[in-house]
């Protein structure tokens, strides 16, 4: 057996997101779970753990793909400034 690295994700309370907490090294899945419990759950600080082989994690960090230079504000709340337009519309309504 060879040691493998497992990444550990911790859910603090039922229904909350799983947050990456660190990793453990273990020769198999059963020991990986055991080590994860000991390292990330011995104080009752975890509701649930996800233990994932590091090799199974795909990473994307290319800034060109994740933060493209093109303006993407049309996808966001901040992309729409309504104040003046809205005031004009309300004024027109009030005027009728």
């Amino acid at each position, binding site marked *: *057996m060879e*040691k493998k*690295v497992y990444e550990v994700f911790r859910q603090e309370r039922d229904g909350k997101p799983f947050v*990456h*907490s*660190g*990793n*453990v*090294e*273990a*020769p198999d899945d059963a*020991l990986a779970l055991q080590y994860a419990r*000991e*390292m990330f759950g*011995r*104080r009752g600080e975890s509701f649930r753990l996800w233990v994932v082989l590091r090799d199974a994690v795909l*990473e994307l*960090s290319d800034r060109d793909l994740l933060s493209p230079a093109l303006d993407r504000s049309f996808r966001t709340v901040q992309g729409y400034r309504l104040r003046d337009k809205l005031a004009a519309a309300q004024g027109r309504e009030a005027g009728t």
Partner: protein
Amino acid sequence: MTVSSLESRTREFFERVSNGGKVEMTDWMPDDYRREVLKFIEMHANSEIMGALPEREWINRAPTIHRKLALTAKIQDEVGHSQLLYRLAEDLGKSREQMFTDLLDGRTKFHNVFHYPTYTWADAGIIAWLVDAAAILSQKALLDCSYAPYARTMAKICWEESFHIKHGYDIVVTMMNGTDRQREMVQDALNRWWGPLMQFHGPRTPRETDKDIAWGIKARANEELRQEFLSLYVPRIRELGLTIPDPNLRYDEERGVWEYTEPDWNELRSVVTGHGPRSQERLGFRRMSYEQEAWVRRAVMGRPVV
């Protein structure tokens, strides 16, 4: 990569980290940075595992079952911290076996305070309260470390250390409410630990020449940490009726700094290079347990145990 593109990449990297940029394990990093972070984390990991040993001496002599459980839990935490930190170091490219061998052979260091003997239960209290208090200040200065996996691990470690400090404080306060003999024991322990505590954060390396600060590895200079330690703990020590064994210790209101007798830097250098009063004994114990438990490591790997 051509030489000039490596140079510009390296320059950009250091510019980024010195301006608060973060580095992940999977990112490219210059060898100098990798080596420095690795050295820093390895020393920290060594200190956590060696730091379990002086306190371990008190598990069988803890005065009550509750103290014994709490002390054992603290020691498990310290060993757990070393596991987390060795993992980080492994990801930076050095094997755990090599780190253990280097520690046992004296090629790498661990913190000065773990080279000293313990004599009474009061030592367990002073270590958990004041040694951990000094350590948590250093560790908090790493919460914003440019090497992000280390910073994240530090958040977990600091959270656990806060229980250690509280427990140590509880031990000391309980003893100070006890008999004269118990108060003497605490005073005696404080007298012995004060020197190593003042050396703990290291010599006054100026901010400007501290590579670890320039590269965003740690946020605060040695002297800043020592000053904060004094500001936080001198009043708490004194209000218990303890005397700090330094006649020159005083707060200069005008300059806003603590003055103190110059710590013995020769002692620090000699202790961390393996010449402390318990350096060799503790390393000997670590070596023994590493050898004795080799069969467990073989067993978990599914190899023959003998």
